């Protein structure tokens, strides 16, 4: 490489304007492979038509040009690292560490003055673009008018203003810390997020981390922008270092760390990651949630492995009759409970897959538990289990039917699972509100309940009317008749 570099240095010196063309190439030459491909393809076009070269030049306007000039300078120093494969994505610490406070490779101004300050990267790209580049013409430059007012000597305030308007600006002139900070403050005062971000990129590259962090501590707005930028570009390490060094937003750190778990597809790794999150300083409530999340995933992994095995073995009738539609991994707690009530209802509390274990571990309230178990057993048409769920024994040994959710809801769930009328009837009978009871009974043809209710209400008219709805000669009709005649007798006796 170095031999080529030396050659290229000379070559570069000899023809000034060529620098401009591969400047533009610099934009895409963030990775060696990419650069080569892009350049080769470009070469084809270049050979066709000189004018086509215009395409890589910028026709000016806002942020693009600013970022371009920044990147010119940025790419110069950063691309010298090898394996910068997805450094922008991973933000590896090597990237940050390798950033010495070097003088910038070159800037727009240096181009025009034909300066020779080159970083190794320039020559590298030079080597790649070499063959195709010879016939580039100076028209590549943007119209001279654009640079009419370019003097390269702007105050921070003016620089920011120019950037806001989209003019080309080199930030390299701001060497001293003082200047840089003034520039940042001006950018923040200007409120244009893109300008702020552009300045921050520049500072990130040219300032030592500690200094940058320290200065950002007192500049909340800029800090927010930087965090946002780092999040978007995925520079996790840098971001975490930033947040860890100074606890700017203690909450953000934990949650942004936690959020990362979503990017981990592998379940085991995700579990490990969640475990790591538990130690972070969340609020007490949040902490318990994170803890629960970890525990849940841990359990799910065990259950999943076990059940998959069971299913494949084909021994379990339950699994054969109702094959699993999806894995239980990453499902919410209530869904997991439903699954457990469905496939593992009778298991002892000691087993991870038993519903009672889940209830205990996650402190699931009674209401939720009964509701979920009810739905699961109803789906399996296990009416006996349903009954047991809703029956409580008091200390005298008497059983009583009780539901923490209202019997009309019970009926709804049962009906949705096509429970037979006899079963439905049991529970419709227990609906407290009379009107609701009548509505449900009539809707689901629970004749006995209707009859009984009308009888209790002493509503002859309705009862007689209802006679028309029952089958002729059925037991229900008899019942109605007997009630009607009874009451008549009672009325006259």
């Amino acid at each position, binding site marked *: 490489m170095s031999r080529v570099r030396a050659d290229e240095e000379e070559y570069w010196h000899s023809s000034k304007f060529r620098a401009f063309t591969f400047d*533009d*190439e610099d*934009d*895409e030459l*963030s*990775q060696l492979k*990419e*650069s080569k491909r*892009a350049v080769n*393809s*470009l070469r*084809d076009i270049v050979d*066709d038509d000189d004018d*086509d070269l*215009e*395409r890589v030049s*910028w*026709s000016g*306007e*806002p*942020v*693009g040009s600013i*970022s371009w000039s920044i*990147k010119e300078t940025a790419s110069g120093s950063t691309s010298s690292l090898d394996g910068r494969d*997805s450094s*922008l*994505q991973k933000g590896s610490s090597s990237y940050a560490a390798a950033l010495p406070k070097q003088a910038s490779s070159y800037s727009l101004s240096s181009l025009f003055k034909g300066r020779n300050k080159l970083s190794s990267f320039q020559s590298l790209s030079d080597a790649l673009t070499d063959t195709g580049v010879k016939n580039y013409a100076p028209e590549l430059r943007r119209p001279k008018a654009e640079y009419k007012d370019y003097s390269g000597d702007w105050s921070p305030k003016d620089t920011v*203003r120019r950037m806001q308007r989209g003019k080309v600006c080199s930030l390299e002139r701001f060497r001293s810390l003082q200047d840089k900070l003034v520039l940042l403050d001006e950018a923040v005062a200007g*409120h*244009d*997020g*893109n300008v702020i*971000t*552009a300045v921050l990129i520049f500072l990130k590259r040219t300032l030592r981390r500690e200094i940058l962090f320290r200065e950002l501590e007192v500049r*909340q707005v800029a800090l*927010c922008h930087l965090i*946002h*930028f780092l999040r*978007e*570009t*995925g520079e996790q390490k840098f971001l975490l270092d930033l947040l860890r060094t100074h606890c700017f937003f203690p*909450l953000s750190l934990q*949650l942004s760390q*936690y*959020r990362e*778990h*979503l*990017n981990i597809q592998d379940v085991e790794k995700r579990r490990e990651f969640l475990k790591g999150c538990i130690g972070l300083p969340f609020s007490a*409530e949040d902490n318990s*949630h*994170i803890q*629960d*999340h970890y525990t*849940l995933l841990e359990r799910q992994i065990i259950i999943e492995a076990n059940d998959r095995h069971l299913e494949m073995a084909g021994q379990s009738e339950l699994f054969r009759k109702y094959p699993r539609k999806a894995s239980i991994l*990453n*499902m*919410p*707690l*209530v869904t997991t409970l439903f699954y457990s009530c469905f496939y593992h209802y009778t298991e002892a509390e000691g087993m991870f897959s038993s519903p009672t274990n889940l209830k205990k571990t996650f402190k*699931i309230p009674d209401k939720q538990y009964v509701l979920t178990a009810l739905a699961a057993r109803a789906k399996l048409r296990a009416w006996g289990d349903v009954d047991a769920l809703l029956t409580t024994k008091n200390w005298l040994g008497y059983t009583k039917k009780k539901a923490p959710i209202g019997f009309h809801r019970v009926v709804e769930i049962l009906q949705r699972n096509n429970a037979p009328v006899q079963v439905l009837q049991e529970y419709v009978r227990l609906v407290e509100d009379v009107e609701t009871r009548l509505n449900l009974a009539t809707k689901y043809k629970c004749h006995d309940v209707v009859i009984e209710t009308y009888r209790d209400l002493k509503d002859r008219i309705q009862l007689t009317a209802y006679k028309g709805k029952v089958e002729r000669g059925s037991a229900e009709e008899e019942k109605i008749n007997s009630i009607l005649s009874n009451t008549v007798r009672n009325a006259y006796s």
Partner: protein
Amino acid sequence: REDRGRSPQRDFHILFVPRRSLLCEQWLKEQGVLGSFIHREQYSLDLIPFDGDLLSMESESAFKECYLESDQTSLYHAAKGLMTLQALYGTIPQIFGKGDCARHVANMMIRMKREFPGSQNSIFPVFDTLLLLDRNVDLLTPLATQLTYEGLIDEIYGIQNTYVKLPPEKFAPKKQGEGGKDLPTEPKKLQLNSAEELYAEIRDKNFNAVGSVLSKKAKIISAAFEERHHAKTVGEIKQFVSQLPHMQAARSSLANHTSIAELIKDITTSEDFFDNLTVEQEFMSGIDTDKVNNYIEDCIAQKHPLIKILRLVCLQSVCNSGLKQKVLDHYKREILQTYGYEHILTLNNLEKAGLLKPQTGGRNNYPTIRKTLRLWMDDVNEQNPNDISYVYSGYAPLSVRLAQLLARPGWRSIEEVLKMLPGPHFEERQQLPTGLQKKRQHGENRVTLVFFLGGVTYAEIAALRFLSQMEDGGTEYIIATTKLINGTTWIKSLMEKLEPAPF
């Protein structure tokens, strides 16, 4: 890149709308294709006119950026949009505002004016007043279900850039002699704006008042078509024929809206809609906002869509100036257990935005605000409204009330209440060159531009239009915003994206 290989002769240009972003370009660069574009341009669209009195930036992330991420770029663009507006319609002499973002925008406007002294133009000012309002001054309104015709269309089907996609079944053209076999499967796409006469008439009405308008219209149109039987002379027939296109357009418009109204009615008469609305109205009138609500719990237990749950709990929180810690924890736990622990991120965002948070200071300001500003009106008249509360059948949007009171009698009368709402309130004046000072004639209305920073709902727009056409109102309103929203899209924009990033 593949394309490049296939057709090296082809030129690729990229046009960023509404503006370039650093990140976009960075990503393109990483993909190695940035240099393959011949031109990279941006086409700046700041304020886009949606209707004769409505402008929007359609910046979806504006609310999230401003209130959660302290990124005020969208405010900067709002200010720029306003500068453009002033260049076209004259400097706005008076600026009122409420909220931190409003303050920023006003400051930026004033500074921009200073920095471009040459832009002083000689256009007679069209706007008398500019009112800048932060969305977080009124977090309540977008959470409630809108009850105007247009509002309901947006709530149920979603209006995108004045277009709505509807289930096609009701729009199948009834051809004579054909069986209903070929039902269209593509959703029916309709454009909705004030160019359509009928729509302009019914869009801002409360939905319960729409039926009677449609049936009246049906009678008029049938009668008009019947006219052809009365046309005797050639002249009369010719006249009838010339009006035919207009009548046909009116008839098809009526058919469309009748179908839409039917679709909406199916939803509004459903038990679930009714139960939901009941709970909303209870909260808005201040009933039981401090306890865990049974209906909400039931909905969570039945695993209703998460956004519906979030809207309700946020509504309760806002109407209670924050929930008691126990109540909040209870809801959070139920939500996380039912929908998944990863939603802790969304809940955190909602807290940051002030939508779902614990009560601080133990004081609930909402009843005072509600009473002073008369936000809940029991005797609402949906058919012939006399107050803006008809848009939510009882609740007057807080933001619009503020605008209403600003015009008459002025904000000085509600100083105390204003202090309870977040952010500073202020007034600024911009100098007009002499000769452009406007003297209002008697009976001539003032024109106020209301700019909602963070989003506005169709119901609020309807309420402002109502104020505009009030006889003794004295003010006409033009509405601008960063985005047209409804409760669902708004909450969605605050939810954390739970899928792994595509890049």
